C-alpha cells in the first residue's frame, strides 16, 4: 500500500513537472529575447548563365537563395552598416557604371587614404575556382569580404560593430531570417553577412558585350578593324616559327578573358625576386618564387576599368599595350609568354578596337545589380 502511495505521488510530481508554463503570468506566450519573426524558408536561386559560359562553380557552403541575394545586395550598398563613419559601402569602390571598379589607381578608404591596390572588377566571380583578390588570399568569395571591412585603409570598421548595427536594425533581422532561417538576432554573424554579400556578387554576370553578340549570339558583326585586332594579336593560333607574340588570349582566353591563374607579367623592374614592392601571391604563399605574381584580371569591360594592373600604374589601354610590346624585365619567374613584339600603330588601333568590343553596356544599368530601393 505504501508503495502504491509512493508511486502515485511520484506520478503526480512528474506530471506537475512536465506541465511547462507556456505563457507568461497572464498566459500569453512571450517571445524569446531577440527572437525574429517572419518567413524563414529560403527560396533557391538559379543563376542565369548563357550557354556560352561554363556552369558556375558550386559553393556547397553557401547555397544561393533569392532572399540571400537580396540581403547581400542591400548590405553591398548600405553605407550605414559597413563603414565606421557611415560614408562608404562595397559599392563605393565597386561602382556599377565602371563595371564594379572605381576608376582609381588605388582605392580610397574612409579617411581618403590610398589602399594598397586597385579595386578589381566584380563581374563573373561565379566562375572563379582559384582564389580571389589580386593575390588570391581569399580561397572563397564569401571570405573575401572580411578584410575590407576591417582594413584601416578601407572601411575601417569592427565586425562586432557591424553585427551590432545589423542586429539592432529594424529591417535586417527579418531579412537574415528569410535568407538563412535563423530564429534570433544573436544568430546574425559575420559568416552569414559575408555569405549574403557573396551570393549577390555571384549574380553579377557580364556576358552581353559586342564580342558575345558577334561570336556567340550571331546577332552582330565586327568591324574590319575589330576583326583585325582579334585575329592579328589577340587570338593568335597560327604563329609562324620565330614569331614571339603568343597572343593576349593565352592568359585572357574567351569566354572568361582571364585564366584564373597568377603570373608575373613583367611590369616590375626589380633586381631580384626579393625586391618587389608588392609581393602579390608570394605574400600569401610565403614562397619567394611567387613574388610579383598577380591574378590575371578579366578583360571583359576592360575599356571601363582603367587604370590598369594591381596598382593602377597604367592610365590607359595604350600604355598597357606598349608595356606588353616592349617585353618584360627578364626576371626569372616572369611568365615566358611575355616576349615583346612589334606593334604597329595600325595593329594597336585594331587591338584597342577589339578590346572595346568586350564592353557589356547592359551590365552598367542592369537593375538587378543596382542599389535597392
Amino acid at each position: 500500500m505504501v508503495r502504491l502511495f509512493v508511486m502515485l505521488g511520484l506520478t503526480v510530481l512528474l506530471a506537475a513537472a512536465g506541465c511547462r508554463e507556456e505563457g507568461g503570468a497572464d498566459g500569453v506566450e512571450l517571445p524569446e529575447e531577440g527572437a525574429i519573426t517572419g518567413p524563414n524558408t529560403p527560396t533557391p536561386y538559379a543563376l542565369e548563365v548563357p550557354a556560352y559560359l561554363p556552369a558556375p562553380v558550386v559553393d556547397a557552403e553557401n547555397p544561393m537563395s533569392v532572399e540571400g541575394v537580396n540581403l547581400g545586395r542591400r548590405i553591398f550598398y548600405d553605407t550605414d552598416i559597413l563603414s565606421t563613419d557611415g560614408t562608404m559601402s562595397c559599392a563605393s569602390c565597386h561602382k556599377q557604371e565602371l563595371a564594379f571598379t572605381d576608376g582609381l589607381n588605388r582605392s580610397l578608404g574612409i579617411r581618403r587614404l590610398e589602399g594598397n591596390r586597385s579595386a578589381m572588377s566584380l563581374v563573373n566571380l561565379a566562375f572563379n575556382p582559384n582564389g580571389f583578390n589580386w593575390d588570391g588570399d581569399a580561397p572563397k568569395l564569401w571570405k573575401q569580404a572580411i578584410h575590407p571591412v576591417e582594413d584601416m585603409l578601407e572601411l575601417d570598421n569592427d565586425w562586432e560593430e557591424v553585427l551590432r548595427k545589423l542586429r539592432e536594425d529594424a529591417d535586417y533581422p527579418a531579412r537574415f531570417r528569410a535568407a538563412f532561417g535563423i530564429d534570433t538576432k544573436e544568430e546574425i554573424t559575420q559568416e552569414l553577412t559575408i555569405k549574403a554579400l557573396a551570393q549577390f556578387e555571384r549574380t553579377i554576370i557580364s556576358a552581353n558585350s559586342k564580342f558575345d553578340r558577334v561570336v556567340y549570339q550571331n546577332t552582330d558583326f565586327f568591324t574590319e578593324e575589330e576583326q583585325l585586332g582579334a585575329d592579328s594579336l589577340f587570338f593568335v593560333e597560327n604563329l609562324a616559327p620565330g614569331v614571339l607574340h603568343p597572343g593576349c588570349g593565352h592568359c585572357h582566353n574567351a569566354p572568361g578573358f582571364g585564366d584564373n591563374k597568377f603570373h608575373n607579367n613583367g611590369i616590375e623592374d626589380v633586381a631580384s625576386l626579393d625586391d618587389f614592392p608588392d609581393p602579390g601571391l608570394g605574400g600569401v604563399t610565403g614562397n619567394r618564387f611567387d613574388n610579383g605574381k598577380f591574378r590575371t584580371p578579366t578583360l571583359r569591360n576592360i575599356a571601363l576599368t582603367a587604370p590598369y594592373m594591381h596598382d593602377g600604374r597604367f592610365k590607359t589601354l595604350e600604355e598597357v599595350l606598349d608595356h606588353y610590346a616592349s617585353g618584360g624585365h627578364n626576371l626569372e619567374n616572369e611568365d615566358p609568354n611575355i616576349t615583346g613584339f612589334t606593334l604597329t600603330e595600325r595593329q594597336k588601333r585594331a587591338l584597342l578596337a577589339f578590346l572595346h568590343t568586350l564592353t557589356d553596356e547592359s551590365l552598367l544599368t542592369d537593375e538587378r545589380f543596382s542599389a535597392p530601393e
Partner: protein
Amino acid sequence: MKHLLLPLLLLLALTACRDDDDVDMPLTETDLTLDFRAEYDGAPLGIQRDAYAYPTGDTLKVLLFQYYVSDLELLPRNGAAPVRLTDIDLLRWMSASDSAMQTRTFRVPEGDYAGLRFGLGVKPELNAQDPSAFPADYVLNEAEFWGPTTRYVFAKIEANADLESDGLYDTGLTYHMGSDSLYTTVEFNQPFSVRAGQTPQLTVVADVLRALSDGSDTFDITNPQQQAVHGGNQAVALDIWNRLAGQFRLEVQQ
C-alpha cells in the same frame, strides 16, 4: 502450418548459401593510388627553384609542365575489358611549392593486371567539345584551349633559359602542343596484382628533359625559330611531342 516452418527456414538458409565461384558475384574493390612524378634528368622536378643544365650547354628553369591524360585504364591479365580509372585528367606542375609527385586514388577491382595505358592528350570526342559545356572548375575548363571555339592544348612546357651564361634567365621558352593528330596512346605492359591491403605502388614518371632531348636528338632551344611553339606550327611541336609521348615510364613496386 507449424510443421511447414522448419522446412521453409531450411530452404531459406540453403538458398542464402551462394557459391563463391558464381560468375555474377560482385567484384571486390579496393583503393589503388597512382602517382604521377615529374622529373628533370632523373631528379624530381623543382618548378622555378632549380636551375637545370641543358645539353646545348645552357641552363634553364622550368616554370610550367603539364599534360592531359585520357582514358586512363588498367588492363586485366585475363583479357577482360579494361578498367577505366578516369576519362580525363590534367597533370600540372606550375608552382615552386608543388611537389614533384601528384597522387590520384581510384576504386578498382581486385585482380591481376597486365599493365596500364592512357591517351596522352585530350581524346578526340572530348577535344571536339566546347569548353563551356563543362563546369568552370572542371579540368576541361582550365583555360587550356587554343581559342574560344577551338581545341585543347594537350601539353605545355614553359621555361626561362640562360643562353648567355650571365646568370639571367631571360629567354622565354614556350612549347604548347595539341591536336587530334598528336593524340597518342601510351601503354605499359608491366604486370601487377591488386589485393586489399596489398596494392602495388604505381608511379607514372615523365621527364621534362627527355621530352626535349633523348641524348642523341636534342631540341635546339637556342634557335630563335624554336623558342615559342604554339598553335599553328605544330610541325615543330611534333618533334617535342614524339619524345614526350615516348619517354613515359611506369614504376611498379608490388
